């Protein structure tokens, strides 16, 4: 594969979108086929480009004009995140019906996300990421203008922050290209900007952020794609931050703070999930919870943590499909997807969390305490998942956009994939080696086991038999054991903080200038004075300027 | 000689500021033209002086075609404008003589008063003829700044200024057609 091939994964979705836009009017089927084929093609292309070489490939296509070279790069990290974006997007575009406009915007959004991942520098990632975010907002508005969507201003702020981080790197270090930034340029302020971009761009917040809110939309077609596109990008930035810092964040306390934030995000989601009144409300909290655990693992700072984070990111990418295709009603599909997402053994999420939390505790010190909190949070999430089985469905979704059988298969597959954890570990450790030094111990893992600092996890030999025994036992078990639910189960604990926050927000929303003081600030009068061509104002401002510059 | 020309420039500008009739406006424009041409002549810029004189004279003559009839020099409500003309004169005198250094104080005074008084007139008029006269005066003032030392544009600027001034006065009056 020649380096220009790196353009193919970006160009194919654009091509698909273009066909969807032109031929889509003829029939939504054509738009659906072209858009999904474009994204599938990109997924195949990424693998086909990487496989023959199995090492980083780069291409530089000159300067773009705003201080950023048009550099594209595909390394193993890029491959993992590309697939984490492309596979769910392609599946959802294939399985769910959309109008040609939605298909077009979705295809372009995926292309932008690919460009952000393949970008060789921070600035180009910022431009492409902001494009993806903009298109996600447009896609959500096209689907339903009045339904909840992420704040455009917040997303723009996030990507502008990344752009700012890029220019600071250019000013301080002379370049914002990932591979060339001097370690000394990766300072705490730059990391803070990057973290801001990642946290708000990906909705990684402990409170009810956009990643939760968009699941209250009537249709979840765009919501699924939005999370599938933007959340991996957010985590991707934190991974690249390791590369910028030569395998470390600027200060070790940043790791602890970020990991604690990750646990907070997961706990916030779990707390809201356990108080959900419908199954839809519960499902809205699943993905933020998964992202929180991935963030915690990522922030540990060790190779094992990063590997766990990559495994959790990949798992989330698959679970997104399941949740987006799941009908609101209960039953086996809902139970299996919920179990897989909650990290029930021997699932892949279970394995990822074991590694991530293990990495935190093995790191010791404050990070160990964060790991402890993580385990407790995991159990809260498990309790919420258990409670959700008895919840009413909530607002129904159009049957055409749900595929319970596919969702059930995804849930079952995610539970059955536990024994494949070692394989995922091998792939993730190869990816992690792109951005940090992975100890030989972690690399020299056989297919069956995973060696950590203090233990060995016998993945295949332990989870394999457990899976087999479990499958046999479940096959024999009596389904009638499921007790019928009587009414909506009460929350496990009330959300006092959320209630207080809601009260404050409402109070702020209702805040207004008291009527007796309104005459002091009259915007209309102000506008009339400013825009009325008033010579007196002109002369006064000249005098003011003269005084300002001559004193 | 230059001091007299500068004083005449101020008188001309003041007349434009105060006058509301076409004759008054034409007189003011003529006085300003004469003053600037005189200053240019005194500075040895003979060609520039002729260009400004031609343009300004044409502008003044064309002004007599349109606008409110008469002189309109002491209309009711013109007192503030008279005071403003005096204040501008005093300020210009301060900047031209006290604050700035070197030769050519009359020249600087003339530049300042012509531009400032025409600007003041532009801000305080509703009549197209008055506004156009102020604009023409402004053109002559800026032309003077460009054509007289130490600027380098010389004759070209004076010609452009003269053309613009004459062109402005040649333009027909426009009334709003209602939005």
């Amino acid at each position, binding site marked *: 594969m020649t380096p220009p091939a790196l353009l193919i994964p970006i160009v194919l979705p654009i091509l698909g979108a273009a066909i969807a836009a032109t031929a889509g009017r003829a029939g939504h089927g054509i738009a659906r086929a072209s858009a999904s084929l474009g994204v599938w093609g990109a997924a195949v292309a990424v693998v086909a480009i990487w496989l023959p070489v199995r090492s980083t490939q780069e291409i530089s296509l000159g300067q773009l004009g705003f201080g950023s070279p048009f550099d594209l790069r595909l390394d193993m990290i890029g491959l993992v995140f590309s697939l984490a974006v492309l596979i769910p997007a392609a599946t959802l575009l294939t399985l769910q019906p959309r109008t040609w406009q939605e298909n077009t915007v979705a295809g372009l959004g995926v292309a932008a996300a690919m460009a952000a991942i393949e970008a060789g520098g921070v600035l180009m990632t910022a431009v492409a990421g902001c494009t993806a975010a903009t298109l996600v907002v447009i896609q959500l508005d096209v689907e339903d203008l009045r339904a909840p969507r992420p704040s455009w201003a917040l997303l723009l702020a996030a990507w502008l922050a990344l752009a700012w981080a890029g220019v600071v790197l250019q000013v301080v270090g002379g370049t914002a290209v990932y591979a060339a930034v001097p370690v000394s340029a990766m300072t705490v302020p730059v990391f803070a900007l990057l973290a801001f971009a990642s946290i708000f761009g990906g909705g990684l917040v402990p409170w009810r952020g956009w990643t939760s809110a968009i699941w209250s939309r009537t249709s979840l077609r765009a919501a699924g794609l939005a999370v599938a596109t933007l959340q991996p990008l957010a985590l991707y930035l934190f991974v690249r931050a390791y590369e910028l810092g030569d395998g470390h964040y600027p200060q070790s306390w940043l790791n602890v703070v970020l990991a604690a934030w990750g646990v907070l995000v997961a706990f916030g989601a779990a707390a809201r999930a356990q108080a959900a009144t419908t199954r839809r409300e519960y499902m809205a909290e699943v993905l933020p919870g998964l992202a929180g655990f991935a963030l915690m693992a990522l922030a540990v700072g060790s190779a094992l943590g990063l590997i766990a984070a990559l495994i959790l990111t990949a798992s989330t990418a698959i679970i997104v499909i399941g949740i987006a295709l799941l009908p609101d009603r209960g039953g086996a599909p809902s139970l299996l997807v919920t179990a897989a997402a909650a990290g029930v053994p021997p699932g892949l999420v279970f394995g990822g969390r074991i590694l991530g939390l293990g990495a935190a505790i093995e790191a010791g010190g404050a990070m160990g305490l964060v790991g402890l909190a993580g385990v407790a949070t995991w159990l809260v999430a498990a309790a919420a998942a258990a*409670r959700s089985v008895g919840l009413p469905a909530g607002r129904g979704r159009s049957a055409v956009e749900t595929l319970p059988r596919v969702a059930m298969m995804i849930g079952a597959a995610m539970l059955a994939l536990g024994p494949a954890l070692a394989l995922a570990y091998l792939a993730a450790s190869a990816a992690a080696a792109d951005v940090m030094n992975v100890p030989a111990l972690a690399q020299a893992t056989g297919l069956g086991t995973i060696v950590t600092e203090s233990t060995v996890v016998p993945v295949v030999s332990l989870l394999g038999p457990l899976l087999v025994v*479990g499958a046999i036992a479940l096959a024999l078990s009596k389904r009638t054991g499921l007790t019928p639910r009587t009414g909506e189960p009460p929350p496990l604990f009330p959300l006092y903080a959320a209630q207080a926050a809601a009260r404050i927000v409402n109070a702020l929303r209702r805040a207004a200038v008291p009527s007796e003081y309104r005459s002091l600030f009259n915007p209309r009068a102000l506008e009339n004075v400013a825009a009325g061509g008033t010579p007196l104002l002109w002369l006064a401002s000249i005098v003011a300027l003269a005084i300002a510059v001559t004193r | 000689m230059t001091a007299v020309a500068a004083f005449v420039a101020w008188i001309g500008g003041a007349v434009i500021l105060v006058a509301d009739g076409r004759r008054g406006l034409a007189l003011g424009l003529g006085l300003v033209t004469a003053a600037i041409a005189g200053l240019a002549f005194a500075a040895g810029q003979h060609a520039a002086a002729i260009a400004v004189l031609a343009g300004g004279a044409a502008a003044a003559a064309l002004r007599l075609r349109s606008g409110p009839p008469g002189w309109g020099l002491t209309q009711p409500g013109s007192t503030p404008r008279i005071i403003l003309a005096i204040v501008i004169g005093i300020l210009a005198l301060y900047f031209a003589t006290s604050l700035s250094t070197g030769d050519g104080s009359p020249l600087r005074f003339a530049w300042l008063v012509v531009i400032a008084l025409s600007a003041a007139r532009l801000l305080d008029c509703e009549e197209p003829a008055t506004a156009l006269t102020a604009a023409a005066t402004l053109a002559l003032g800026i032309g003077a700044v460009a054509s007289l030392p130490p600027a380098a544009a010389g004759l070209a600027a004076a010609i452009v200024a003269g053309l613009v001034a004459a062109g402005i006065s040649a333009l027909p009056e426009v009334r709003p057609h209602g939005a």
Partner: protein
Amino acid sequence: MTQALAAIATHALALVVYPGGITLALFGLAVETVWSRLSGGPQAMPRPSLAHPLIVQVAVALLAMLAAVEVAAPFNPVPPAERNLIIAAAALGFTAWAELALDPELVAHPGLLLIIQACWVLSVLGPAIEPETLRPQVLGNVLVPGLLPVKVACGFLYLLCLPALLRLWPVAPRADRRAHPRFNITRAFVWFPYCALFTTLFLPPQGEDVPGMLRFFGVTAAVAIVALVAAAALARRGADRARGLYSRAVPPYSALVLALVVVTLILTR
């Protein structure tokens, strides 16, 4: 390849026979029978259908098996290096929620149970933070004076939480208003992992011989008896007192334990 197959066989053996499936079932049924007698429940053990067990029993049994293989029972086919504390904690933690999902009748006051489970997690993982290890038997072996206070405090917290985690407290589920507690087969599956994990974490590991095995099971049985006695005492005092203890006494004590863990962490660095 042969090694992999051998590893799979030994782990399968551990899961199904010892210290997993059969062992935990026998231990659990024995202790549950004693509890049934103590609490005046049915004298005879009901006969669960082995051909068609209830799905909740299957789920809990599988999780209990996974937890059981992580304990430091002598002759455990799973090598000591391959045991992981988080797997044990997570698997045991999931048992309660599997019951809530599949048979809510079995779970009383899930909110309170969640709080107690959090306290229990602290007691299990608290001692692991400073040594930075996840091997259960290594933690059991820790006898450094500086770490003993944490270990003792966590051990006591573990014992405090045990009756509630095993639902031995006199707090009946909303949907279950029987006069006498029933013979709980799903609980029978978790007796061994809970008690054996205590033995593993808070007492030095036993030798890989018959006396060591006897000592291990003896201590584990003793832990079960302590839990039974505590549960009987709670039962005598009534549901309100039990709820009061677990909502007003255990969480503050857990906070103290957490503070102790933090202080120890600071002092040892």
